């Protein structure tokens, strides 16, 4: 897997758990304790699968996505939202097309790993499949 993973969560325990999970698999992972740090990583050139918490202080997950899109940093990334809620709130309206998948806490680490690996394979394929429309 060439692509990297970023865990964006203000909860240190979650960040470290996910970091260990992916490092054990030999997958490169970076951590961000909030939306602003996530944006810093992206501005610095990170591209890969983002696992992002919704509820974070200062810049929450939805507003972080809005910033990612507004700054032109979305291309080459896949965003998975990590949340304690089974159903998303209305703040997701208008940006759902940028949220490829949704993981509910508590999550099964192996299911998360499989999901991220699958999405990473999609990112690894850089050849355009078809011109459209």
């Amino acid at each position, binding site marked *: 897997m060439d692509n990297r993973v970023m865990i964006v969560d203000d909860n240190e325990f979650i960040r470290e758990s996910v970091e260990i999970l992916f490092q054990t698999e030999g997958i490169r992972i970076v951590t961000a304790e909030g939306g602003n740090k996530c944006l810093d990583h992206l501005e610095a050139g990170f591209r890969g699968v983002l696992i992002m918490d919704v509820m974070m202080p200062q810049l929450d997950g939805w507003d972080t996505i809005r910033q990612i899109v507004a700054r032109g940093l979305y291309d080459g990334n896949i965003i998975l939202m990590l949340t304690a809620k089974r159903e998303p709130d209305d703040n997701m309206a208008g940006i759902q097309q940028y949220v490829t998948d*949704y993981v509910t806490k508590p999550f099964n680490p192996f299911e998360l790993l499989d999901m991220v690996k699958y999405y990473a394979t999609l990112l690894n394929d850089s050849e355009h499949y*078809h011109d459209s429309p």
Partner: protein
Amino acid sequence: MIPHNIVIIGVSTGGPIALRRLFADLPPLNAAIIVVLHIPQGMDYRIAKGLDAVSSMPVALAVNGEYLRAGHVYIAPGGYHLMLEGNHRIVMVEGERVNFVQPSVDLAMKSISRPLKGKIVGVVLTGMGKDGAEGIQHIKAIGGITMAQDQDSCAIFGMPKAAAETGVVDFVLSPEKMGKKLASILS
């Protein structure tokens, strides 16, 4: 040859994996299959290629003006609304977002007319919001068969719930069972 049967699938967040589960064991169908996924430009072709890797039928991004063929899967590209002309030709339409999204499931489904012969199947899979609820009512109104993904298998039980709450959904199923149902209807 113009396909008489059409399957139209609307899906959003959680869609790539739900689609992979649906198509993994699905045999070739005697139908053209349209997938309207809420996805931005740049990601759409990646999703198409990922689905093509597991599907028994060829999967490609839909192209403006293209004629549908049975046994082919067409993914609506991001940034346009996809509509069908005469139930057999794909038309891409620019314009405002509908239900906060583009492509819109409702617009795509509502562009299908009552067929002279053949079957129309409308499917709503995982996703936030209610896009597809009006569309699935239209599919039912023109004599189609309707399906929605069940709550347990959904990443987000928003769109399928809204579709089911219209009261016109014939089957509420997991993606795997949906695949078997489609095969029994259209093989």
